[in-house]
């Protein structure tokens, strides 16, 4: 079921094509490194804030016991304080390993930080994202991030000698790892066979051909724009989709500019005031023409072809 096809699909260097088991090529965008760093920082903030809140809450609820924990040795510790301590150690362990694991195993395949930056974890071979893969990529996080950070934290005390420098080199090595492969994989991704991709969120926009002058007359002036074969043949798919974007954005200045360009190109006299209707009509007719060509296997990429 694993069908893999990766290729650069022109333009955006982060675009890849992934072939689903059904044989449909779905474009997928590798998450930018900036988004991933952002997600990581956000996750750390969440973890840190969460742990601080829990600690404060514990202090507030069991203040007396907490004093006992800090002052007493383990021989004189009471049962309740002991229990609290266990909970605390267990919680830190879970926060360190469980947070990323639990969220990435969820249906969104993303930690809260990743969700906010709009990215998610996916399996590189277009198959299922398995629990093992998520475990593997998160265990590796330990040497990529936590280990060197610990080195760096103890470095200022001078106890560990050159460990700080070693930690820094280590840290930089793994941080640089995503920059040396085109899919921006970190070491954990390599081991787990995963990558981090953008999680698309697209809303279905209105159909353009059902509104306004695309259907016939302009609402404003009642004029009907009809274009001949020659006038429509100057543009291709690329221009059509640019025009679509302009129409959907609805920016008056852009509409006027595009209107003028098209008029000049097809040799019409650019008027003013009814640009939108003109463009809607032109869009609908150009698209009808190009799509008609498509059905016969003729495609016109852009105005140059």
């Amino acid at each position: 079921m694993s069908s893999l096809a990766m290729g650069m699909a022109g333009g955006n260097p982060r675009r890849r094509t992934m072939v689903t088991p059904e044989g449909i090529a779905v474009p997928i965008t590798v998450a930018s490194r900036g988004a991933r760093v952002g997600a990581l920082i956000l996750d750390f903030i969440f973890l840190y804030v969460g742990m601080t809140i829990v600690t404060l809450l514990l202090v507030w609820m069991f203040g007396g016991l907490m004093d006992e924990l800090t002052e007493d040795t383990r021989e004189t510790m009471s049962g309740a304080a002991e229990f609290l301590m266990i909970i605390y150690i267990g919680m830190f362990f879970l926060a360190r390993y469980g947070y990323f694991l639990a969220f990435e195993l969820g249906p969104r395949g993303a930690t809260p930080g990743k969700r906010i930056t709009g990215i998610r974890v996916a399996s590189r071979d277009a198959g299922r994202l398995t629990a093992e893969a998520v475990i593997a990529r998160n265990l590796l996080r330990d040497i990529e991030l936590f280990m060197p950070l610990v080195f760096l934290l103890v470095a200022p005390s001078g106890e560990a000698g050159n460990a700080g420098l070693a930690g820094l080199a280590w840290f930089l090595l793994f941080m640089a790892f995503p920059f040396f492969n085109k899919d921006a994989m970190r070491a954990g991704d390599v081991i787990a066979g995963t990558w981090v991709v953008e999680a698309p969120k697209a809303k279905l926009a209105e159909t353009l051909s059902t509104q306004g002058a695309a259907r016939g007359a302009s609402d404003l002036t009642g004029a009907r724009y009809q274009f001949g074969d020659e006038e429509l043949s100057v543009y291709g798919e690329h221009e059509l989709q640019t025009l679509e974007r302009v129409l959907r954005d609805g920016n008056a200045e852009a509409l006027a500019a595009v209107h003028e360009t098209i008029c000049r190109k097809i040799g019409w006299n650019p008027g003013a005031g009814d640009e939108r209707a003109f463009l809607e009509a032109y869009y609908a007719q150009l698209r009808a023409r190009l799509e008609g060509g498509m059905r016969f296997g003729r495609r016109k990429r852009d105005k140059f072809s």
Partner: protein
Amino acid sequence: MRSPILSSWFGRGEVAAPPDVESAVLRSDRFRLEREGDWARLEHIVKRMESGRLRGISDEDLLALPILYRTAASSLSVARETSLDLATLTYLEALVQRAWFQVYGPRQGLTRWLSGFLFGGWSRAVRAIWLDICVALFVMLTGTVVGWLLVEQDKEWYYRLVPTQFADARVPGASREQLLETLGTEEGANGLSVFAAYLFSNNAGVAILAFALGFAFGIPSLLLLVHNMAVLGAMLWLFAGQGLEWEFAAWLSVHGTTELFAILLAGAAGLHIGRSMAFPGDRSILTAASESGRRAAMVMAGVVLMLVFAGFLEAFARQLVGGTADRFLIGGTMLALWLAYFFAYRRPAQGDES
């Protein structure tokens, strides 16, 4: 089946009714308007699944999901050949991708994964890396011998090998009584559970490190194993010098059979990754790394579990049970249990696991 049922899917009327199909001038827009209802339904289901509210999805919708997904996927292929509407294409691409993540997502659930893991998956993964386990075992034994020999040659090595936290009374030149005392038991169970939790957290760190270092072709994993075992060898030498080797072995075996086994597995898992990256065979390095990485991760999940056991054994059983024979009994039983679980307990793989 379009409009009457449709209204119920959009509970709060969040989507306006699409324009009449007949009003579309273009054929490709008519194609889109005819199918828009299905796409919207799919998007609705996918959104629900993404937010984890599986309960809110009716059985009918859940059954329809694969069909809707395939419909959307085929709509996308058709649209690519017939439509130039960028908005529709982008939307469909995003929708198919999102639906694909849900249809082929980690839909196993943690509990099902866990039961598959405990009943067969874990021991299967351990057996799959048997060669690495043998290598790691050999390296660990070598490490112990090396530790012993080094200290025997020059006592200074003891201070270099053994971390200061262990070198309280356990230093060369200590009397038999002092050494025996470190092998003794505690009066009560007070404070021991904290000790257990601390030990677990600490050991799990070492094990995960041994695994993760396998990334560098497994060499650092082996070095870590050698170093840890050299410490053991050095201490063994110290105790043997006072004729306490059996007492020491018994003291260690209570939790050591579990803990050292776990560290052995962790090192073997790391080595497994390193080995498959160094010698990927006819696979690409990336494929080899990810295949072995997933297998090793399975082993590692179990290692963490073993270390929980080891932590409790170390803190309670070892500190409370005093007799040499009793300690050997506990340690031996644990070892036998683990061996039986990993190598005798064979359960055929489930169909859906690849």
